[in-house]
């Protein structure tokens, strides 16, 4: 019964998402494209944060390098978009392997600081390596020719790109979800709750943390590959440490204990930002208040709180 209701809600949400270009204005097509991309970014982050218990302050490095990789391939090689995304994932996986190798051996605040430091280094490189990255202006002026698999793709119509993003984010979310439900995912949850017990059960916790870190980085890179054509630019802001804060805020806002929490958080974040900035300049103040309230009163986030409330009502 419960699962049936949940499946029904999910089906309605998916149908609604598919229908967005037909029922909403172009403005909201853009908004929902952003929600999906940032939702994937936040969900990838939550694999290491909500599941494994690693608070990284450098997740934007993988998002940003994914964006740069796609932009570079589009500019210099004009490969199909699907290939660009694979390059983005490969580049971010490699970067995550390097940063993760050096970081996962540390715990808690030291891990957080080290990921922040690496994130800043990557930002500095993108900012200063002008010949490749075009410095503070970033890389722009690329176009999409084809999607791959024989399909055409254009940025002229935002609905088309929205549907591409929806399809890719849906597939990526399913893969991430399966990982969370697997035995490997169960071990990640166990590591968050008690890493010592896991190592005394015969597993090298550091290896598991590294694998989780690389998977998270890879999917962040995919999200980055999607954001570059959407913004039509890959710029250093995507790598800035403040960009690393966004998935943290989104995950907490939506609920770190639920797979879909970060997507809900992304939706809440982007929609609130859009609505609030039309009324007032102080979006950061409002966001700060909302986050403080969430952390103090609704630790489980929007989704967790809604589910708790629903369970109460059902009783």
């Amino acid at each position: 019964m419960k699962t049936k209701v949940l499946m029904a809600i999910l089906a309605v949400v998916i149908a609604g998402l598919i229908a967005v270009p037909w029922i909403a204005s172009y403005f909201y097509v853009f908004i929902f494209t952003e929600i999906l991309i940032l939702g994937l970014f936040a969900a990838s982050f939550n694999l290491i944060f909500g599941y494994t218990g690693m608070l990284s302050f450098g997740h934007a490095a993988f998002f940003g390098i994914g964006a740069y990789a796609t932009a570079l391939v589009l500019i210099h090689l004009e490969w199909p978009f699907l290939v660009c995304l694979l390059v983005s994932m490969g580049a971010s996986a490699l970067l995550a392997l390097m940063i993760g190798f050096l970081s996962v051996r540390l715990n808690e605040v030291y891990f957080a600081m080290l990921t922040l430091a690496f994130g800043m280094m990557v930002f500095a490189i993108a900012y200063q390596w002008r010949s490749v990255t075009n410095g503070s202006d970033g890389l722009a002026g690329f176009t999409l020719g084809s999607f791959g698999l024989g399909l055409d793709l254009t940025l002229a119509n935002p609905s088309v790109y929205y549907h591409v993003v929806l399809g890719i984010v849906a597939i990526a979310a399913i893969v991430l979800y399966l990982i969370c439900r697997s035995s490997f995912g169960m071990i990640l949850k166990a590591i968050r709750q008690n890493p010592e017990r896991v190592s005394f059960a015969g597993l090298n916790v550091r290896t598991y943390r590294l694998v989780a870190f690389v998977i998270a980085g890879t999917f962040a890179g995919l999200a980055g590959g999607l954001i570059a054509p959407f913004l039509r630019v890959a710029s250093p802001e995507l790598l800035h440490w403040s960009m690393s804060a966004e998935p943290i805020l989104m995950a907490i806002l939506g609920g770190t204990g639920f797979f879909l929490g970060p997507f809900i958080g992304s939706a809440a974040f982007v929609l609130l930002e859009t609505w609030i900035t039309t009324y007032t300049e102080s979006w950061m103040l409002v966001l700060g208040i909302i986050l403080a309230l969430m952390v103090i009163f609704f630790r489980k986030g929007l989704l967790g709180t809604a589910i708790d409330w629903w369970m109460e009502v059902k009783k």
Partner: protein
Amino acid sequence: MSNPVLTITNLTKRFGGVTAVSDINLEVMPRETLAIIGPNGAGKTTFYNMVSGRMHPTEGKIMLDGRDITGLPPHKISRLGVSRSFQINNIFPEMTVQENVEVVLSAYHGHSRKLFNIASRNTSIQQEAVEFLKRLGIDSLKAQRAEVISYGDKRLLEIAMVLATQPKLVLLDEPTAGMTPDETRRTTRLIKKLADSGDYTFMITEHDMDVVFNLADRILVMHRGEKLFAGTPEEVKNHPEVRVAYLGEEDDEAVEEANP
């Protein structure tokens, strides 16, 4: 005579100026139950920490089944067949009781590397987990969140997790500490049954002398890091120095309780 499971030579651990474990030599034979007794601070937990890889020995050697395991990390020592419980409960609080055992089992069977199976549909592991819970008499709690079960049941759950890796050597660190007298009796009976099954080699540290004399084939008495004596329960009971050290300590405690 078979070969020892564990051979300890000159094992020493110093923390700065404190010598927590001092020059211990010991052999543990297959399927025996060896108790380590000694007052608080005697070095029992530190001894376990070295054998299980949680701490590096300052000096000495640890051989498991003829293989040098000195200074290996915990996960490797666990893989080689040493499994331990902790003096303070060490479980996965937000998982169910059954999932706690499933985590250990999927680590042991190598399922933990599977990215795309569905953990909640792994019936063979689930059945095996329930088997281990049955052995400890807590299978009726399998669906409860581990953090809500009683203190004594948590300690039993941890023993179930310790046994789930099919260890050659089981180290239990004060398994009945903090239990009610009833829980202590129940736990002692369970451990006795497991030991009598002949499937396990146990080392047990314990404060409760009744428990020790009930369970142990052999007793190692530690005092300030040193091996004071090792022998059968009968020998330990009649050993004058041990009586002094032990009864002396207990008298001190009694005096302290009388004059806080």
